[in-house]
């Protein structure tokens, strides 16, 4: 279980962590520490263990071995396809769910909580869509509503599972702006992604492929050897006259990500 104090200057810590859903862990040998205010991009193929790591960090899944610690209760933004699109809630209702982290779950949402939800929706550009049913929003709008829920939770650590997957450019730009604001405000942000190029903009990169392949600054981690170990057959090196480019084969209707080959 994730927990609060005792982590000192470490916002997120994994130490010899292994986790899975049956007898055999799907993720093992994960050890890293993230200082408060840092941003981390988690790279890896589908099934590489990104979501499993996040489920451990938010306390939904117990480690099979090792330990994980998060300073305070993290906010979590799931992949939108993992939410119930047929469930009758509005974008404002979703944002208000972030207020449950403050306790008093047995009481109806108060005026302050509603004001926080409206402010979060405005921050992600959904002020006019507060009453629209979540399942009727576009993919990018849904992702922003989930981000608004995380903002209402007002956590020191935010964990986002492929927040830009299948998102339209306008939503991606808005989400990127919010990331920048959060990092400027000293929040620790962990983001899983298939976009190798965007990983260069983070403070640290964590590469997973059933185990920890690498962790460190992008300049040290994003070399061809590490990426091949991370993506294996899901990475193709293109040689089309210019510099070699690596393309990661992606799923869930993601666009292909490219980066300059080392």
């Amino acid at each position: 279980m994730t927990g609060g104090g005792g982590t000192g200057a470490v916002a997120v810590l994994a130490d010899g962590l292994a986790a899975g859903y049956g007898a055999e862990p799907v993720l093992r040998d994960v050890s890293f520490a993230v200082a408060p205010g840092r941003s981390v991009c988690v790279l890896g193929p589908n099934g590489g263990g990104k979501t499993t790591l996040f489920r451990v960090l938010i306390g939904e899944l117990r480690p099979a071995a090792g330990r994980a610690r998060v300073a305070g209760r993290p906010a979590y933004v799931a992949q939108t396809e993992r939410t119930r699109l047929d469930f009758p809630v509005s974008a404002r209702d979703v944002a208000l769910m972030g207020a449950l982290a403050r306790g008093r779950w047995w009481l109806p949402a108060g005026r302050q909580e509603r004001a926080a939800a409206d402010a979060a929706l405005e921050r992600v550009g959904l002020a006019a869509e507060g009453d629209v049913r979540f399942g009727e929003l576009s993919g990018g709008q849904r992702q922003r509503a989930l981000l608004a829920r995380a903002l209402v939770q007002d956590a020191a650590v935010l964990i986002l599972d492929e927040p830009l997957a299948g998102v339209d450019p306008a939503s991606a730009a808005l989400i990127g702006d919010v990331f920048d604001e959060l990092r400027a405000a000293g929040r620790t942000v962990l983001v899983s992604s298939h976009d190798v190029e965007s990983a260069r903009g983070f403070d640290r990169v964590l590469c997973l492929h059933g185990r920890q392949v690498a962790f460190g600054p992008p300049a040290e981690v994003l070399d061809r050897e590490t990426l091949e170990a991370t993506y294996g057959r899901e990475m193709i090196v293109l040689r089309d006259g210019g510099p070699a480019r690596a393309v990661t084969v992606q799923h869930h209707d993601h666009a292909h990500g490219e980066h300059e080959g080392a």
Partner: protein
Amino acid sequence: MEPFDWLLEPLRSGIDRRALLEVALVGGFCGALGFWIVTERLTYAAESLSHGLLPGLVLAALAGAPLLLGAAGGAVAAAVLLALAGRDERIGPDTGTAVAVTGLVGLGALLALEPDAPPRLEELLFGDPLGVSDGDLAAAAALLVAGGAALAALHRPLAAVAFDPPGAAAAGLRPALVRIALLVLLASAIAVAVRGLGALLVLAALVAPPVAVRRHVRTPAGAMVGGGALAVAAGLTGIELSFHAGTAAGASVALALCAAAAVGAVGRRSRRSPRPH
């Protein structure tokens, strides 16, 4: 006879008055609870639990004990057995549950058909809202008040867990505990409602109302209020039908509930146009 008098005619009979009150109290709660049962995909669990408590009902009838006591004991025993049967990964949870439920129904029928047993199997299987006692009505009223209060208090956690369990866990909720609370409410509702609708028909009060209203509401609260109101209306319609047509009361209520579900399921959906991606 004026139509209004025709409708109020059952109220002149003390027996039918109690039946109307019973189906209104039980229907009000089960119709509201049913939204969460259907949303959390617990319909098969509800059916298994309601059928599986039959031996408890029969034993209570044989011993002359209150049926509510037998239903509660039977529900607990059935829940434990179903949980154990569902854990056998070699045959899968559905198959294990089906075998256990069939065994429990067979055991209940075997006990009830003993030569010395009082002839009440039909009542236990199909319910008898016309035979409810003061204690049954008190239990139904307590279920509506206490269960309704629990549903109101659990409203936000239930919605958060149903919408996105990992997100709810990150916000500090325990999805497993929220679901256990829901199962406790389900077992309580079945134990009380089985008196009027029987082990085979009680599921109608839980599942038909949310099916009827689900396409026409925009919030969980709307679904609960709408489901509860529809269950009350269908229950009263069933008792009216039973009174005037001379049909079995429990079966009439179940048929009215299922008819409402069929109408609601094919009715026009209340929704806005999907937004562009």
